[in-house]
């Protein structure tokens, strides 16, 4: 199974929670990104994320002035984070269950960001679809059911 770190986008841009929404929009446009990561302020502070959806649903939809609103007012924090070793099919399942489309990849620090676009474009799910049974065999190679299928 491919891992999150193999298909994640490594170019991640961070922003402070105190930045204005207008600054976030400018950064997203300039870098061609759909989301920015809000870095923790201290060691115990969680990661956050602000996405284009946050900006459209919470600012544009109400005609609020992006220059008067701050990222912390609309961001998702704490956000769901993914471990770099997590298998792509498990990332997909996590996303489906929690109704999200992207998450930062964290281990020790921020390594990248993984989104449904990365999964669609870079993973091998079309060429190598993995049923639950195949995943089970991967994880339990010594199970009798798994051994039957050995080449």
């Amino acid at each position: 199974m491919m891992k999150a770190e193999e298909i994640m986008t490594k170019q991640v841009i961070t922003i402070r929670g105190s930045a204005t929404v207008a600054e976030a929009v400018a950064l997203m446009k300039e870098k061609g990104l759909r989301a920015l990561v809000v870095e923790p302020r201290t060691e115990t502070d969680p990661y956050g994320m602000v996405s284009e959806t946050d900006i459209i649903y919470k600012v544009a939809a109400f005609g609020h002035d992006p220059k008067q609103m701050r990222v912390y007012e609309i961001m998702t924090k704490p956000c769901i984070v993914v471990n770099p070793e997590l298998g792509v099919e498990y990332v997909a399942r996590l996303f489906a269950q929690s109704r999200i489309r992207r998450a930062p990849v964290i281990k020790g620090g921020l390594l990248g960001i993984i989104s449904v676009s990365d999964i669609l474009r870079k993973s091998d799910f079309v060429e190598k679809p993995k049923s639950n049974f195949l995943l089970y065999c991967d994880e339990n190679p010594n199970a009798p059911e798994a051994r039957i299928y050995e080449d």
Partner: protein
Amino acid sequence: MMKAEQIMTKEVVTIQGSATVADAVKLMKDKQLRALIVEPRSATDPYGMVTETDIVYKVVAKFIEDKIEVAREEARAICAAKGATSPECAAAWDVLEELQAEAAHQRSKKKVKSSL
């Protein structure tokens, strides 16, 4: 106020509902799109849409249906080996029923939620 037509993306790619998901993925990758429009089949048929979120949520993460299939095979094998009235056989069918209930629950949840 600006209008939708002033900012919309005019390059739209359509796909048939009968195409495979693999075809849709290829088209999305080729055209660099995150959604395809499913054209109406007749004058009264509604428009449809398939997004990359649909594919990732419903295809890449498709575990539960496979789980049910494995559980059903297992239950059959256990019942054949231990007897149809054995406690092992009853337990195996219980596992299958639980999975089916979970799948039905997920389906009913999906109905109210939009894929976008």
